[in-house]
Each structure stands twice: as C-alpha cells, then as structure tokens.
C-alpha cells in the first residue's frame, strides 16, 4: 500500500485528480458571483455590451456590412467564444501566484489550478449559449441540429488552446512578472488580429496568409460558421485542433521545465 515515492514527482490517481478538478471548479463557480447582485447576468453583460458598442461604432457609423448576416449577430457569434479566451488568458498570469500559500505548502499537481480556472470559464461560456440561441432566433435565423455535436467539438478544441496558452503564461509569469502587463497588451492586439469584428473574407488577399498564422483565427471562424450557418468546415476544425494541440504542447513543456521551482519563487 505504501509504495516508495520520490518526493517532488507526484503521481496521484486519476480519480483523485478528477475530484481535485471538480472541487476547484465548484469553488470558482460559487465564488465568482457570490457577492454580486446580478450574478450570472455578468457573464452575458460583458460580451453583449461590446457587441452593442461595435454595432454602433462599426455597423452604424462606419456602415460595415457582412454579406448575409445582420452585423450584431455576426459580432455575437465571435464575441462570446472570445470572451472565454480573454477571461482565462487575462487571469492566467496570476493563477499560480495567487495560490502561493498552497504551492509553498502542499504537494499536488499545480497545473490543476490552471485547468480548473479555464474549465470554469468554459462552463460560463456554455451557459451563455441560450443567449446566443435567442439572438439567432431574434434575427430570424434557426439554430441547427449540428450545434449538438458542434458545440462540444469546438469547445474541446478551444479548451486545448486556452489551457495551453494559460499554462505557458502562468508558468513563465512566476519567473518574469512583467508578463502580466505584456499579456494585457497581447490580448488587445490579438482581439483585432482575429476576425471577430470583421469577416475573414474582407481581409485583402496578401494578408490572408498572415491571418492563418493566428492560432485562434480558425477557432473563431469555426464558431461563426456553426452559430450563423449551422455548418462545420472540416479543414477549419482540423486547423483549430492542430493549433490547440500545439498550444497544449508548448504550455506543457514550459510547465514541466519551470514548475519544480514554483514553491521557491511564488
């Protein structure tokens, strides 16, 4: 029963890891809106306000038009998944540092802290899908049956991407605290380099190739296709998964290399 274990390399059982993730996600979910009166409405309010602002500024004032869709609906399809990514990545720099007392004292797989943070943001995103559905119906479109397999398929791809990026940022930030500021700017830049407020088709041909280098561009395009057309483009989904696995690999490598000293530096 008491097997020899070398300190510092925990290999806990899968059922224990499951419990750990569950308990931490429950905590995140309970804590987030515990002291706020509007509660869940905040998960929806943030992307809706941005949708309204861009609808007015770009849709009405700049007269931006998307062939085939009302501009606010197009914004919603990209804005809600983006909200998940930006919340998780924005919180990533502090994910280990805010748990310093835990990391210094208790031996447990620390990447679980990042996984549960990203997972609770994922659940908040999934809880906003009824609002997306209402918006689709409001503009006279129809939700599709493809959503049923499509939403989990894309959510998994997005989880791999966001978890990988968040793990990398959280790990490096323990050593290099400036990354917190850099991440905030990086998110601003990434938002405008991703086809969220404009469609991929409107990008001039000479820049198209650059947009494909953006690891989250295929992901957002896939969500837009799913919510607006009820379609899943195989090559776009494949690209989203390829980028997701690449992010996961980079995050895992950095975490493995940097985590042994976390307890000394957080």
């Amino acid at each position: 029963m008491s097997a020899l274990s070398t300190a510092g390399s925990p290999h806990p059982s899968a059922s224990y890891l499951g419990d750990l993730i569950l308990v931490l996600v429950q905590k995140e979910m309970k804590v987030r809106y515990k002291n706020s009166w509007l509660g869940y409405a905040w998960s929806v309010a943030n992307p809706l306000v941005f949708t309204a602002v861009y609808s007015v500024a770009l849709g009405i004032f700049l007269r931006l038009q998307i062939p085939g869709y009302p501009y606010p609906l197009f914004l919603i399809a990209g804005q809600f998944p983006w909200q998940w990514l930006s919340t998780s990545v924005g919180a990533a720099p502090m994910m280990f540092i805010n748990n310093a007392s835990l990391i210094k004292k208790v031996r447990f797989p620390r990447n679980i802290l990042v996984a549960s943070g990203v997972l609770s943001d994922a659940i908040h995103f999934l809880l906003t899908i009824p609002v997306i559905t209402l918006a689709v119906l409001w503009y006279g479109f129809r939700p599709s049956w493809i959503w049923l397999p499509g939403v989990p398929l894309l959510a998994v791809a997005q989880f791999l991407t966001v978890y990988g990026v968040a793990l990398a940022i959280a790990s490096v930030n323990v050593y290099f605290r400036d990354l917190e500021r850099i991440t905030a700017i990086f998110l601003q830049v990434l938002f405008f380099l991703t086809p969220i407020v404009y469609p991929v088709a409107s990008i001039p041909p000479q820049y198209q190739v650059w947009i494909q280098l953006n690891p989250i561009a295929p992901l957002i395009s896939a969500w837009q296709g799913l919510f607006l057309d009820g379609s899943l483009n195989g090559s776009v989904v494949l690209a989203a998964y390829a980028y997701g696995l690449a992010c996961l690999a980079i995050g895992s490598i950095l975490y493995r290399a940097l985590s042994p000293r976390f307890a000394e530096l957080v």
Partner: protein
Amino acid sequence: MNAIRLDHVSKAYPRHQYLTHGLKQTLLHLPDLVRRMRADRFLALNEVSLEVEQGEAVAIVGPNGAGKSTMLGLIAGVIRPETGTVEIRGRVAPLLELGAGFHFDLTGRENIVLNAVLMGMTRREVARRFDAIVAFSGLEAVLDEPLRTYSSGMVARLGFSVAAHLDPDILLIDEILAVGDASFQQKCLARIAELQQSGKTIVLVTHDLHAMEQWCDEAIWLNAGTIRQRGLPVTVAKAYREELLREGDMVKHKDPSDERAAPSTQPAPSSRME
C-alpha cells in the same frame, strides 16, 4: 523501515530574485549581475543526511534560518533538492499551513471539502470523515456561515480538524500548536499523541523544547544548514539551551551605553521559506 530518508541533500537559494532590479539596471550590469547571481547563493541545507524510522516522532530545533522549513518543504515534496536524494514512504500530511486554500466567501462546510481534497483526500474519503471532522472542530453551529464571519481561532480550528483527519503515514507539523484556545490546544496535542500511538511518523518543527522533551523520540538540532547534534530530546535540549544561554550572555556583556560600538556584523537572519 525508513519512512523518510534524506541522502546528502543540499539546497541553495539565490539571494537575489530574478530580474527584479528593473530593465536599466539589469542591462547596464548584466555580466556582473550574472556572476553575482551565480556566486551569491544562500545555502539553506548543506549535505544533510537523515533517516527517520516509521512510527518515530522527531523534533527539529534550531535558530531562524537554520534550514528547518526547507527540510519540511523537501519532505512535503514541494521543494526539490539541488543535490542528493529524498525518499518518502507513504502519504505525507503537511500541517505546515493550516487551512491551505480556504476561501473566505465559502461556508465552513464547503471549505472542509475544498481543503481536504487539496490536502490529498478523495471526495469519498471526505464524505466518510466529514462528521468526525465537524465534531472535532466543535463548529456545528456555524457550519453553513461563510468563513469570513469566523474568528481567526475558529478558522484555525477548522484547519486543524481537517488536517487531523487526513490519515497520513507521515505528519509534518510546523509550530502550529499555538492555535486556538487552551482547551482546543489540549485537543490538538491529544490527537497528535493518538496518531503517534497508531504508528504514524511525525516530524515537528518547534521552539518549544519542553513539548519536544515530553513527546518526541528523537531530536535534531539544525544550525546554518547542517545537523549540529542529533540524539535523545533531553540531551539535545540541554545542549541547545546552553548554547542559547551563551548567546544571551554575549548580548548582555556588550555595553549598551557605548555609542561608538561598531554596528553588529552578524548577518541578518534570512527568512526565506518561512
């Protein structure tokens, strides 16, 4: 059988945090900085070897900065040794920090589950021991109130109650017995004695030499990263007390009215990992 084995373990920390001097300073003095960071390391533990038998209660004493907390961190598995090996047999319960991961917006009930799982229990194990934990804490009446309404003594009681029911093979205790009121302290000591009798290995970091003599099998005196003395608690306590008295005498013999006295050249005690 050994529960804990440290074999020529050394651990050093850089004195300077990485890149905390600002960009300009860093760039201007880069080669110098790298050289300094390499050389200027604080040796928290120096080639320490130690074996603790299963079922033994060991006390670690020593001044601040002697390496006590580093040693507990190594046994808990949160710190990796620079050189040497650390082998642990069985589940370690770190009583290093009571209530690790408590969230003050959650209720006492929610925090018991959260803390117990973070300390290594599965949810099934928590469910089985939940009533015992609550009964031990004596906090039934406020169990569904948020933790921020608790007094600090109550929070500590909840933390100890969870830790005391972890059913570990090895308990690491870092000077926590100054927790709660007198009757709860008695309860803590009784629980630790009970765990000790049931064959658990206990490592206790303490400044309370009396407690050490009373219920430890062995004592280790750490000083400046090495084991200065190891033996029966009574013997080690006697030697340690004499050393403390000698230091006390030296302080007393300095004339405090002499204003020209050179400032103390003693290095400030390092507080890393404490």
